[in-house]
């Protein structure tokens, strides 16, 4: 039976700078088998795949523990190309196709069929002519294996999204000796009928003897197509079993299930705001076009003075909500803020009317890395509210009041305990946690009535995390500022929020009290509620 096993992880572990992300991961995959790999964000799925693929980051951070066996041999790939060459294919969430090329050209990119000619015999293989007929034939064969009907001469740019996904998969299986295929959320961009065809195609592929790892947050897909299930939680395998007889609810519980101890004291401090009388923000039918975080149709109400959490898996659209309301990405719908209609797609106006936003993209959007801390903190307040400005000539000249700016910076450095040499230090030189505090200070300096905080603890160490969360809660209590916090980390939301909305596929699937059982959140994230609704429709 050993010969039948295509992939085997044996006690694989990995840590980044002392931060353990994988421990003791072991499981096996047989030829022709489909393995569903599920887990929350940060459960270790991508790190595991990176190890398998020999992505540079792994070596640069000191390699990994344990062994990986592929096709009966122990392997340590040094680069993705080695992995590709030995027969592992991977289909990513984002397309890596060339839009101006035909399907055939993309499927055979850098593995083109060529014919030798006189010149190539002298100067080498790179000058061999391309054999278009062979290319078309080979590409068509690949596409047919998937059981779909796409003309291999069509340009990628003229294809519907679904077809692009098929071309992408066809490219991976075309590599003649592909033995293992990894599909990372392949159905995320597909319509339901397309997804069905894709699942069928995956089954066909498995029947031809290829081992498949299928990563998806749509648990119903996992159940319907996979043979075997592996659930990762906090970097460890919690379940490895066959899919037969497993229910979606169970999987959801396995994914999020944590020890519930110690949760109580989180909530003790949170004041109870349970009536809908005083609504500060009313969002109706919001859509936001933020690449990778599309919001389709979202409505919710935020009560004055509460901390409102928005959670959900990466790519489902939770980040699009604040970015859209703040006018950073094109959006539509209706927003009522403080009983006034808030025009969309106008950042200045959003800031002016008392909103503030701490972006999830700290270094890209949140900071001027080459400017000093004080300028970073004061900038928004100066631009929006004319704070820290001395006016001359009846307001014609608005001179920066450097002293006021420095005073303000000093105040926040002290309040938030920002570790720096002085207020004049460049933001680039600070650690992640301190940069995040500067971003918070920037938002606080605006003295907002409602503050959006997006992924406030992403990429910062544990100690800093606590400080940031405490600062937020402190600010909320002291100034009665309403806070909407968006985070991928459910625990963090449950620790400081009053209510938590869960976003899935661009829509809010449910709003729960932070005290609700954790499995309920897991179910929402997997889009189960939606599934049940659909189920009813079918009946």
């Amino acid at each position, binding site marked *: 039976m050993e010969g039948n096993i295509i992939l085997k992880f044996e006690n694989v572990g990995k840590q980044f700078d002392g931060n353990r992300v994988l421990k003791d991961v072991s499981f096996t995959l047989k030829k022709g088998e489909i393995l569903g790999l599920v887990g929350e964000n940060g459960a270790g799925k991508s790190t595991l795949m990176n190890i398998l693929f020999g992505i540079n980051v792994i070596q640069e951070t000191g390699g990994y523990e344990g062994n990986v066996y592929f096709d009966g041999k122990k392997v340590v790939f040094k680069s*993705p190309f080695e992995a590709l060459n030995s027969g592992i294919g991977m289909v990513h969430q984002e397309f890596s196709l060339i839009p*101006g090329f035909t399907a055939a050209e993309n499927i055979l990119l*850098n593995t083109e069929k060529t014919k030798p000619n006189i010149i190539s015999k002298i100067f080498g293989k790179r*000058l061999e002519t*391309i054999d278009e007929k062979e290319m078309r034939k080979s590409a068509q064969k690949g596409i047919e294996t998937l059981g779909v009907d796409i003309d291999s001469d069509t340009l990628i740019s003229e294809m519907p*999204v679904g077809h692009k996904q098929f071309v992408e998969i066809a490219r991976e299986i075309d590599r003649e000796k592909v033995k293992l295929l990894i599909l990372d959320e392949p159905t995320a961009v597909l319509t339901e009928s397309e997804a069905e065809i894709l699942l069928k195609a995956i089954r066909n592929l498995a029947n031809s003897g290829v081992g498949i790892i299928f990563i998806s947050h749509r648990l119903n897909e996992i159940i319907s197509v996979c043979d075997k299930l592996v659930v990762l939680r906090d970097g460890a395998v919690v379940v490895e079993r066959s899919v037969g007889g497993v229910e979606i609810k169970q999987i959801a519980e396995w994914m999020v299930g944590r020890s519930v101890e110690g949760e109580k004291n989180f909530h003790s401090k949170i004041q109870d705001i349970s009536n809908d009388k005083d609504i500060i923000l009313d969002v109706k039918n919001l859509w936001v076009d933020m*690449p990778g975080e599309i919001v389709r149709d979202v409505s919710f109400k935020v009560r004055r003075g509460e901390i409102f959490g928005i959670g959900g898996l990466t790519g489902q659209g939770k980040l699009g909500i604040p970015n859209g309301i703040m006018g950073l990405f094109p959006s539509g719908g209706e927003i009522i803020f403080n009983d006034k209609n808030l025009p969309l797609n106008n950042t200045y106006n959003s800031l002016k009317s008392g909103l503030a936003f701490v972006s999830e993209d700290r270094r890209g959007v949140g900071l001027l890395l080459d400017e000093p801390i004080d300028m970073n903190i004061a900038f928004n307040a100066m631009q929006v509210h004319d704070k820290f400005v001395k006016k001359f000539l009846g307001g014609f000249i608005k001179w920066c009041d450097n002293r006021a700016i420095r005073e303000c910076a000093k105040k926040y450095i002290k309040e938030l305990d920002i570790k720096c040499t002085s207020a004049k230090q460049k933001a680039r030189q600070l650690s992640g946690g301190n940069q995040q505090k500067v971003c918070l200070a920037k938002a606080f300096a605006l003295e907002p009535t409602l503050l959006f905080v997006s992924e406030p603890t992403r990429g910062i160490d544990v100690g800093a995390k606590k400080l940031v969360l405490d600062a937020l809660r402190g600010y909320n209590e002291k100034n009665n500022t309403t806070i909407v916090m968006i985070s991928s980390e459910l625990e963090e939301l449950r620790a400081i929020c009053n209510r938590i909305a869960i976003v899935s596929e661009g829509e809010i699937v449910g709003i729960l009290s932070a005290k609700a059982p954790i499995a309920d959140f897991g179910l929402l994230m997997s889009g189960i509620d939606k599934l049940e609704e659909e189920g009813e429709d079918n009946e």
Partner: protein
Amino acid sequence: MQIKNNSIEKFLINSAVPILFILISSIAIPLSKFSGIYLVREIVTRLTRDTFLVLSLLIPVMAGMGINFGMVLGAMAGQIGLIFVTDWGVKGVLGLVIAMIISTPISILLGYFSGAVLNRSKGREMITAMMLALFISGIYQFFLLYLCGSIIPIKNYKLLLSRGYGIRNAINLDTAGAFDRLLRIKIRGVSVSFGTILIIVAICIFTTWFRKTKLGQNMRAVGQDMVVADSAGIKVDKTRIQAIIISTVLACYGQIIYLQNIGTINTYNGADQAALFAAAALLVGGATVSRATITNAVVGTALFHLMFIVMPMAGKNLTGSAMLGEYFRMFISYGIVTIALVLHSWKRQKDREMARVQFRVNVKALK
């Protein structure tokens, strides 16, 4: 029917620039009072003279590096080759062939250097190539003005400045017209140099064939999306350097063909404008910064030079000032490159926006 309409529309959009130039020329030709036979003769001469240089721009466009303003490097290499054969007194076709042989390694070296520099400035290749050409032109001048005749022996004192070293500003070529005289045939009073034309046809065939090779395919892939090409295992930097080397070598040959037709070398300023005129000609032919064909090159060269001949005369006849027409054609040369660059950049931004709008429609439809 629908499709046919579309393709006519597409054709019109793609050839908007050439059509505009045909219109301008058709107004200017009667004003210039040139005879038809004169114009035909001039255009045939200039097509044989310039097309090769214009064709040297095609491959970098394919590799996504825009107009190779660094082709001047090749032109300078070609001039060095010609200066040496003139010094050695080799005449005729043999002289030109030897000039090509001497200048090939120089242009390969310069092309490699240019490609390496451009790899360090991805996203702003065109301005870098242009500045690099100006920089190398300084070294070229240093080489010819101070090293030639002092360190590098030049026997032929006619080539040297009166002070005893340094190459003169203008040099008459012994090899003048050597390619042109091959197979020259007079057709109705227009002499056509089939020798040179055959060389041009050969390079057209080479380019067409090259596009179909593995290397050509790699260049197209790199040109469209470097990240995807890289993840497919194509060596992006190396491929880009190769594209520039080919372009530089072709530009070198192009300059030799150009100069044997003219007959004299303008030693220090001759190469500077080569890239501008070649780029303008290519763009007049309807090419863009990201898409250029052989047809674009040939049609563009003809149209551009038609305008070049007609404009000063038309300007003079219209206003009485010869300079006006002269400035107008310089304005048009620079202007056409400007407009092409602006349209390209603008279109790229618009495409990006359109893609998002399309996406939004899809998202709505999904709902």
